[in-house]
């Protein structure tokens, strides 16, 4: 069954190779297979209960247009949660990034070139996101306050800052539609495949590589598993956690830009509706609330389940009022399911 570990092996081979075994594969990837099973089962249920909706290609185009707005943020949130932290301030970071965006656009009118102005404005939004994220991380790490408390506070603070700076006003962003950033961020390839889906895939791949093939991700897992061990073994746990919060800050600001571009309009409440669905994607995807385990692929699938549920509740004939109830139920049930599976696996 496991020939490389028998003690009679005379010479140790140079390379450690695992012979493929379905059982071992299933064990090692139980969480991801679990979420894939949930994904396929729900999909089947949706198709059976609303075939007209779920067998047409339009619904999938619509999913790929709307789901990336929160799914993009669920990727770095997964990294934060694996490090046994949480960030609830990302919806406000989305909006604050857009405030920096419009401020930069409005003050660079002397350049006289909308494309350069919008490019600078996007950059300003990302930098703002990075700064707010780092500040979250700094407060959490240096003062030793739980991230749940800190980010509830900063969530209100930055939402408040948005309202003060904009005086609660919403405004149009029609000027962006003339720049190449518009099709680059929210265009449609071949009139069907939305660019925001491409960006979601890009962020997912970057997140996966960072988490699984980079020292940063290795340290994230170790910090979430046992922060004391990580410190004793010389990992700079403060810096790594601040970087994780900075990452979700940048990506949230980016998601804010993409979501605003999609409607070419800015609402000061931007991001408010994404808190629950982003969190639900991460927990449904099998990332442990206790830290130390979780996968990017799980979150990616989780986001699509969450996104499909809203459409499905309506298509099945329930009113939109049901979606929040179902989201809440899913968060609680998925956390229970994954905790149970993990305890059994040990």
């Amino acid at each position, binding site marked *: 069954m496991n020939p490389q570990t028998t003690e009679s092996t005379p010479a140790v081979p140079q*390379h450690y190779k*695992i012979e493929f075994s379905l059982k071992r594969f299933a064990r090692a990837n139980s969480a991801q297979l679990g979420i894939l099973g949930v994904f396929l089962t729900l999909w089947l249920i949706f198709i059976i209960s609303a075939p007209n909706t779920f067998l047409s290609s339009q619904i999938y185009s619509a999913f790929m247009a709307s789901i990336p707005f929160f799914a993009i943020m669920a990727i770095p949130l997964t990294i934060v949660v694996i490090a046994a932290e949480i960030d609830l301030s990302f919806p406000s970071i989305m909006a604050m990034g857009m405030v920096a965006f419009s401020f930069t656009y409005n003050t660079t009118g002397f350049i006289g070139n909308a494309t350069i102005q919008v490019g600078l404005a996007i950059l300003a939004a990302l930098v703002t996101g990075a700064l707010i994220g780092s500040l979250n991380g700094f407060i959490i790490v240096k003062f030793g306050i739980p991230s749940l408390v800190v980010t509830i506070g900063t969530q209100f603070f930055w939402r408040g800052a948005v309202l003060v700076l904009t005086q609660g006003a919403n405004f149009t962003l029609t000027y962006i539609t003339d720049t190449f950033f518009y099709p680059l961020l929210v265009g449609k390839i071949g009139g069907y495949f939305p660019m925001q889906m491409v960006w979601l895939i890009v962020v997912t791949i970057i997140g996966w590589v960072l988490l699984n093939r980079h020292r940063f991700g290795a340290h994230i897992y170790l910090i979430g598993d046992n922060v004391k061990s990580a410190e004793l073994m010389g990992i700079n746990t403060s810096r790594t956690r601040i970087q994780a919060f900075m990452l979700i800050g940048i990506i949230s600001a980016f998601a804010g830009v993409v979501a605003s571009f999609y409607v070419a309009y800015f609402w000061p409440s931007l991001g408010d509706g994404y808190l629950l669905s982003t969190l639900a994607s991460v927990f449904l995807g099998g990332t442990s609330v206790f830290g130390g385990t979780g996968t990017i692929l799980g979150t990616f699938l989780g986001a699509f389940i969450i996104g499909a549920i809203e459409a499905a509740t309506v298509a099945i004939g329930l009113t939109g009022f049901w979606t929040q109830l179902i989201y809440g139920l899913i968060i609680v049930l998925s956390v229970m399911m994954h905790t149970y599976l993990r305890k059994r696996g040990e």
Partner: protein
Amino acid sequence: MEEYRLELRNVSKSFGEVQSLENINFKLGQNEIVGLLGDNGAGKSTLIKIITGYHQPTSGEIFFNGQKVEHLSVPKARELGVETVYQERALAELQTLWRNIFLGREICNSLGFLDIQQMRDETYRLMNQSMGFTSHAVSPDSRVGTYSGGEKQGVAIVRALFFNAEIVILDEPTMGLSLKETAKLVNFVKGIKQAGKSAIFIDHNIFHVYNVADRVVVIDRGKVAGEFLTKNIGVNELMEKMVHVAETGSLD
């Protein structure tokens, strides 16, 4: 003059109002095994954590091979060849064996990308050659949390030795081990001596310490209460002195 591998001069450490260590003078010779004895809360673990760079002393000086070292940190201590098997083992139990072996110093290129295959290969080699793991449940990709106490300790020890340790520190390494595993551990500490390295060995069990140490340092209430060469003192005599120290705080 003989150069010590490690020397602490007048090292004190306080946490807020609590004075944990007071003017500690401690020497570790080349190729010497020093046993550290003392009651719970005597300051053994704090002393160890100063040597490993985890705590910074409030005052005092630290010398490695006669060179004064300022601002000792965990990575710096490791560069100087200090490797530690912690009382709490410092493992990440939800993670795989190879991640634990390379905890905190993953093999990666200049951009920080991991060389996972090499880490797995090295882990596999160590597992077979040094840890003597024969259980089917153990592979580089198995989770450390599923191992027995002895296997976990094996991981912590092999990890300390793999990276060219000059000074191996063992903090209560026999805790939670079976008799057979303990015997193996004692042999292992003797192996450190034969390999020409130095070690600091901390244990509650006087017999284990007496068995392997060249010299025993007794710590009590944050101070060095006394030290003996094991060749000059019998184990019973040492035990009596320990009881005396625990009761009165001094050797005399």
